[in-house]
């Protein structure tokens, strides 16, 4: 409703204000920033992220997309991910799982869940890191020798659980 009377910008500022006043000031503020960055395409364009549901006021469920790096087996594929930023984010790392099936070291074969220990951004998480950092690291992992030639499932398959 508000959108009719306010521009996107105004709305954004209003929400920021709200974020400041809430208990979870740092978290919401941070996530709003990340939302904005995701929409503005900050970065080199090889990863993308945004809220799974725009109405999600808790800013918890996010969607990510990684474009498979060239000259690897992941080339030309787009990998969809779910990222969940819990209540302690950004002090605690987010939960990440692949939606698109992938064969990558550190990703569970059965459900696409990313093993925190296998991704250094998650294992050694700092609160200055962000969803973008995690996605970019996963993309870098795809370029590693040990991963770049792993045979992949047919394109377009997703984990069902």
């Amino acid at each position: 409703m508000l959108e009719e009377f306010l521009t996107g910008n105004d709305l954004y500022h209003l929400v920021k204000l709200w974020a400041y006043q809430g208990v979870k000031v740092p978290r919401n503020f941070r996530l709003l920033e990340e939302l904005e960055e995701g929409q503005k395409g900050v970065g080199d364009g090889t990863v993308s992220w945004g809220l799974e549901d725009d109405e999600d006021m808790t800013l918890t469920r996010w969607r990510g997309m990684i474009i498979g790096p060239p000259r690897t087996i992941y080339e030309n594929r787009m990998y969809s991910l779910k990222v969940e930023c819990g209540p302690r984010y950004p002090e605690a790392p987010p939960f990440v799982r692949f939606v698109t099936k992938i064969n990558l070291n550190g990703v569970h074969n059965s459900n696409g869940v990313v093993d925190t220990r296998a991704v250094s951004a998650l294992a050694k998480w700092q609160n200055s890191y962000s969803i973008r950092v995690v996605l970019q690291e996963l993309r870098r992992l795809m370029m590693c020798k040990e991963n770049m030639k792993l045979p992949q499932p047919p394109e377009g398959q997703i984990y069902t659980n």
Partner: protein
Amino acid sequence: MAESSGTDPTVDSNVVENAAKDRTMIVVTVKTPKDKEEIAILEDSSVAQFKEEISKRFNAKLDQLVLIFAGKILKDGDTLNQHGIKDGLTVHLVIKTAPKATSGSTSQNSASSSGTPQANSSSSASSPVPNASTPPGTGPAIQPPNLLSGFGDLSSLSGMGMGSANFMELQQQMQRQLMSNPEMLSQIMDNPLVQNMMSNPDLMRQMIVTNPQMQQLMERNPEISHMLNNPELMRQTMELARNPAMMQEMMRNQDRALSNLESIPGGYNALRRMYTDIQEPMFSAAREQFGNNPFSALGGNLDSGVQPSRTENREPLPNPWGPPGTAPSESRGTGSSTTTSSNGGTAPSVSSLPNPLGINASGLGNGVFSSPGMQSLMQQISENPQLMQNMLSAPYMRSMMQSLAQNPDLASQMQNPEALSVMTNPRAMQALMQIQQGLQTLQTEAPGLMPSLAPGGIPGIPSTTGGSVAPEGPPPPTQGSNPSADVSPSQQQQQLMQQMLQMFAGGVTTTQAVTPEVRFQQQLDQLSAMGFLNREANLQALIATGGDINAAIERLLGSQPS
């Protein structure tokens, strides 16, 4: 927001439309990994309409475009509004040239390369794609699908009478079919024509080399060209291709082994792999024995760190829970003499290694593993897997395991380093066995005597029966039963011993055998002669190292034991 300009007749129709405020032009940035363009589009457009504009600007076909915004792929039927795409925001674009070709800009390179009418070229080889159910893990092994799609094309061509004008399509189709149907691959392999060709390595080599994608591949991966020169290897690879399951297995093995190698250099890694070899059968055997016992959650946290079992090529190790082998005492001989300092250094990693005793380290906390005695044991075992089997097959181990299973309290006792050092000292264990036997004899001979030995333990007794309960054949210090100077540690020890003996005697309470202090009397004397005057520290060190003086000295000189 556009202002209403409906009153000005010279304004063109576009603006008039916009003036109604129903529709607004927005400028959206479209970004590819290589390029960036700003595209003006009506706010309420559909994604399909947006793509039309993009297709013009980027010179690409509609079906090649994939748009991503905020982590989601934009479907043609969606609207920009739906996804919240507004003025000034950025949408990511991926231009697909053909399946498995390079992304980003224009590129019909894969199309052009497969334009060659020869059936031997395969379109989708630009990326080292296995994409099939016959995953070739290593570089060289990638050959088969390409070759086979080549062969496949031949067969399909002959089948269709060369009807199709577009070989590329055929090949792509073939590839796709191969991908989805592993049996097809084996069928192809079984085709005598194919086999004929395959048995001629030169021909194969020729076919491979002329394929431009293959050439690209060879550039990236020089191993491939080596492989091409080795006909034996090629044949082997072909064999493998026949059997997709085996291929997968082998590939996984190699990849896992590779990642293993790459991740952690050095001895730890070798150890780890050896443990993996030993761990699997052990744990499965252990699980069988313990059923749902909490201790049997053995490999739980280890499995995730350890790679899938190499079922294809590992010889089965003898069942460690099998019939008792020779007594381990001789093989345990120098166990305690290994330096504790190096073990201390590997403590963190050791705790993640499989526990030969089948105890979940994380379950028991690190107490079990931080004991240098235990660590030296591990080291011994790593150097000699046979040792572990010997150890495990000893009868006392078995009964201990059983008791452990029945009595989880014992686990906490196990954390006591003194208890552990006793456990790891085979001579001590033998002594305990003898005690057990003695007690059993006593039980039969004088049943009346047993009940009088209360479970709580009789602190007084050890001092008198110290060395006399059972004739201790071997080694332990032959000094008489000199009660400890310090009461409290030995009381603790006594209780421990009692508990341990309890389990051996199957619930019959016993007295304590020998206090560590008594056992180490000789060593203690030596240490004090050398100038280590802190008797208690000496004792602790000796207990921890199982009587090894040198190791004890190192302990005393080094940092405090954990």
